[in-house]
């Protein structure tokens, strides 16, 4: 548990503070050093095909990717918790119908719907995370609903009901705090999913747009240039892989601990 968390914190800190410490702006062009090799003076990781500092771009790209991922995961969390809580609380036919909808949505090719959304509404960053969040809430809804069903028969909930608390107050004050741990675990597991989708979209040119950057765009640029500048592919690739693996490991550990 400790190693993944330390790696995640290191990457997040670097992405937040790093760009402030580097002499280059992510879209500043150094005309004297186009396609500079790594470890050249002034450019730790070299520059890309138009002379932008790769280290600065990677740090900013990581920041954008993480920002979108967090925002999208929060959108997914909100929809998922609301949906699951209502279904679990109401039970019966309403529950049945709401969960059927979730089952049906699970079976759909969602990536294509997101791509359609991107094409339809232009490629703004806001839409990237709202769109992704809107399709990634299904697992969260299932988990929250399951927890609600367990909690509903607990004495403290029945007591609150007998004391005349409104369903809304019971859900918000008494039940959701008990679900928080599990929800956090699944939130952690949603983030790598979202990072993956964002990079996927940006890689295809449908997500974040130049000159803004993200890990997906950097990977795409790196893949285009890999025969002459492999480090431009390896650096963002390594960061993305470390992020995804560590987030997944940490999320799974937390989930197993919460379930036990």
């Amino acid at each position, binding site marked *: 548990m400790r190693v993944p968390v330390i790696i995640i914190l290191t990457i997040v800190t670097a992405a937040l503070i790093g760009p402030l410490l580097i002499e280059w702006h992510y879209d500043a062009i150094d005309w004297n050093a186009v396609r500079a090799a790594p470890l050249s003076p002034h450019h730790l990781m070299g520059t890309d095909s138009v002379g932008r500092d790769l280290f600065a771009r990677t740090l900013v790209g990581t920041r954008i990717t993480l920002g979108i991922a967090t925002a999208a995961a929060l959108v997914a969390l909100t929809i998922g918790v609301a949906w699951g809580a209502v279904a679990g609380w109401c039970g019966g036919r309403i529950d049945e119908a709401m969960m059927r909808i979730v089952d049906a949505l699970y*079976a759909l*090719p969602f990536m294509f719907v997101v791509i359609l959304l991107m094409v339809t509404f232009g490629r703004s960053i806001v839409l990237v995370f709202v769109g992704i969040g809107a399709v990634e809430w299904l697992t969260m809804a299932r988990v929250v609903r399951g927890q609600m069903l367990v909690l509903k028969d607990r004495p403290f909930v029945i007591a609150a009901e007998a004391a005349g608390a409104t369903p809304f107050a019971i859900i918000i004050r008494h039940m959701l705090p008990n679900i928080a741990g599990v929800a956090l675990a699944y939130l952690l597991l949603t983030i790598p999913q979202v990072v993956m989708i964002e990079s*996927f979209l940006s890689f295809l040119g449908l997500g974040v747009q130049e000159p803004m950057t993200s890990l997906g765009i950097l990977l795409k640029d790196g893949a285009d240039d890999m*025969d002459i500048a492999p480090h431009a592919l390896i650096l963002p690739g390594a960061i*993305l892989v470390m992020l995804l693996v560590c987030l997944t490991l940490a999320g*799974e550990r937390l989930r197993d601990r919460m379930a036990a």
Partner: protein
Amino acid sequence: MLELVRRRLMTALPTLAAIVILSFVLMRIAPGGPFDGERAIDPQTRAALMAAYGLDRPLPEQIGLYLLRLAHGDFGPSLVYRDFTVTDLIARGLPISMTLGGCALVLALVLGTGGGVIAASRAGRTIDHALMLIATILTAVPSFVTGPLLALVFALWAGWLPVSGWGDGDPSHMILPVIALALPATGAIAKLTRAGLATALAQDNVRSARARGLRTTTILIRHALRPALIPVASYLGPAAAGLLTGAVVIETIFALPGLGRYFVQGALNRDYPLVLGVVTLYAALIILFNLLADLAYGWLDPRARG
């Protein structure tokens, strides 16, 4: 069994129609159209083009007409590749995508179940932990990262395999794309097999088999593997969806002329009929795979046959 197939097909058609209508409406409210080029077209020509493709009719009528044609297996003309119908383009791209996805699925099933069995038979040992860590890493790393990295190492540096392209179906061109596409599914299947086996090995029939003195390998394969594969079977639906979406990016990376590339090109060019056709086909394939997964489920677990 037949009853299940019938019931599933009954719900499949409305689902498919709903997806088509949703995609249709989404594509139409998009700003910009297929005839927006570098140069503005003369309004009369534009109106004539719109009329020729039926784009000037009211939206519900267009949807109705499209569904009607779809029921006859006609996906309509492509708006951008003017000399081809969407059916032509699908007929060109689908075999390539199916080969890619099929090979990747088989590879993932073989490697995944194999890895899962090895890990479960050495439960708690170093090899178990190592395999499961590898499985987590494989699941977490998307194919658009492994694809370029594999191409870099095995094609550019080692020079063993071609970097990209289709090479008129030469098998060596398929090796790297298939591996890159299969890896995430391999990790997921290995984890599911390992977890399923752990549950199955704790069952009474396995304890009896052990008490009768059967060899561990025999117990694993004859008694435990079948129930352990049930979660793997139910993963086939999501796996198919994952492979299809993965194929979109893999085909772009390795420049394979499959369906996924037509989809991305179509989306960027606003080639409505092409995008709709591909989405419809993908949705149908995913629904089909979910059905196959259910059938496999019933075959593996007699209690689930209803």
